[in-house]
């Protein structure tokens, strides 16, 4: 161990570390047994510390479901923002929308795994207030996206929402344009369990009454988002009703899909114009079977949500509510770069997320 003093001199090795490597062979050095034991314990502790590796800060991101054109661009937006900030995300969700219990399980998982923040798109407004309060009690920052839970924002809770008022107004203007100011329409997919859909509907109806008073809503259909088949049955009953409506406005992705399937089943004679919400079915826009869809800017929502959690963790103030404007997707702008990033599955090295 003659090299040790030189090493100490060169690299300023701390005394404890030098003691770990010292032996008593160089001479008769008096040593206390307990001190030796203490030194060896210290060495072991140092080795153990060296073996540990720091868990990277991780945010749980829980959409309503995964692997859909609505939520995958959100995934990319969140993953890019996390990477930019040197954070990681845990991404998972129930395999179907409206699996409230499944989403609550993921929230509990976030608690168990001590994630540093949670971004969630809740399936229902009322049911999620208690689980989210539980996270807030432990001072885990939460950003709620895509629905206003009506829990007041606080330093740990903020909202990043699709601007439903603009969405409703955009749909009303599109209906007015395609029907040239007059006709009868049906509104499907009104879901009273989601505040966002209620706001969407109110905004649409107000804008329609204001901007196109000669277009009247002949049918309003309520129903939750749980089943496309259910929405299809509702749409089929509308298509078979007399007098016929000129257009259907479907307020959710599953209502849009259900109405589209009903239109296909009805046959080629169906001239009913279909205007939907939330990116899910894209090819029928190209073929003209769906006139247009009001799409959410989910990559931007994901980015802002992650930035808010990181800012909150760094002790910075975040805006209590951020509204992100949706866009109208039509056959004309389907392949534009700015719309494509909102529905296209972009590549990302997910092992790095």
């Amino acid at each position, binding site marked *: 161990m003659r090299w040790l003093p030189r090493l100490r001199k060169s690299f300023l090795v701390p005394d404890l570390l030098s003691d770990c490597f010292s*032996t*008593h*062979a160089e001479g*008769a*050095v*008096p*040593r206390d047994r307990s001190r030796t034991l203490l030194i060896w314990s210290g060495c072991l502790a140092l080795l153990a510390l060296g073996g540990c590796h720091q868990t990277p800060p991780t945010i749980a991101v829980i959409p309503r*479901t*995964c*692997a859909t054109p609505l939520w*995958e661009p959100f*995934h990319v937006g969140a*993953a*890019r923002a996390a*990477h930019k900030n040197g954070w990681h995300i*845990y*991404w*998972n*969700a*129930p*395999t*179907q929308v409206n699996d409230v219990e499944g989403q609550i399980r993921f929230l509990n998982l976030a608690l168990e795994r001590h994630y540093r923040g949670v971004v969630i798109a809740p399936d229902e407004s009322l049911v999620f207030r208690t689980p989210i309060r539980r996270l807030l009690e432990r001072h885990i920052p939460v950003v709620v996206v895509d629905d206003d839970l009506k829990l007041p924002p606080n330093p740990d809770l903020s909202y990043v929402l699709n601007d439903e008022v603009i969405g409703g107004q955009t749909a009303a203007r599109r209906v007015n344009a395609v029907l040239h100011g007059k006709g009868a329409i049906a509104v499907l997919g009104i879901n009273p369990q989601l505040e966002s859909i209620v706001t969407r509907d109110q905004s649409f109806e107000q804008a329609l009454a204001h901007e196109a008073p000669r277009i009247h809503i002949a049918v309003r259909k309520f129903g939750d988002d749980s089943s496309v088949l259910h929405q299809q049955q509702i749409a089929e009953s509308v298509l078979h009703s007399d007098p016929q409506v000129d257009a259907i406005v479907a307020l959710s992705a599953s209502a849009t899909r259900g109405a589209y399937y009903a239109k296909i089943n009805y046959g080629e004679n169906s001239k009913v114009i279909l205007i939907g919400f939330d990116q899910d079915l894209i090819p029928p826009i190209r073929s003209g079977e769906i006139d247009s869809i009001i799409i959410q800017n989910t990559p931007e929502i994901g980015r802002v949500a992650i930035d808010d959690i990181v800012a909150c963790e760094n002790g910075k103030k975040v805006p209590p509510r951020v509204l992100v404007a949706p866009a109208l997707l039509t056959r004309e702008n389907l392949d534009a770069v700015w719309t494509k990033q909102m529905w296209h*599955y972009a*590549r*990302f*090295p*997910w*092992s*790095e*997320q």
Partner: protein
Amino acid sequence: MITARTARRYALWSLFAITLSAASIFLWMRLQTVGSRGPALQFVSPSLSNGWVPFGGDWKSQGKTILNDSEDRGPKMMNGSLKWKNYFIEADIKLLGPYGDAGLIIRSSGEERGVDSYHGYFAGIRNMDNSFIFGRADFGWDQYIVKRIFPGVRGWYHIKLLAYGCSLAASVTNETGLIVRSYVNDPHCIHEGRFGLKSYDTSAEWRNVRIGPSTLNQLQKLTRGMTPAVVNSNLNEVDS
């Protein structure tokens, strides 16, 4: 006071302790690699009590086949060792629903319930667009290859998925012997993991599930005449 004799004794004991530690570490490392290269060549029993672990879905063993009797999105059924490195899995697969996909997983770990919620490679057939798909999941799907299957996805298909080093090859053969192959090199590959069955949006059946160790010779045979597509997983290049 420690005399020179005692010091010599301490030195001998220290040498003995170091030798013992080194031997232990070597033995531990050997034990870690035992069985890590790949499984023995075998047909895997479809009996659900034979080590299969489900993640979602409604899995049943029916004679010689394994059935997932649900149209859930992304259920998986896993088996094998997390330490297996170079091996292949092959099976006959039939889709039972109109719009989904089903196939095989290799080198998987960290599985959870959910769509794409595992780290591993997947190759399968999809009847929505009559295609053969091959890619990697890391709680997000990175699709490497989509190839059209002619005339369309109907009946039984034989899929083989082979991992050797960072090379991955897959093939699908229909009942008439028509074959579609793909071959990739993933520089940041997943090195080890277990195998599994997976479906998406459709019920499906698997039979004759067989696993075995893979060799360079097998890889070359499966990919004869092909050049591997190199996966670009550089975050700075992909994330633009």
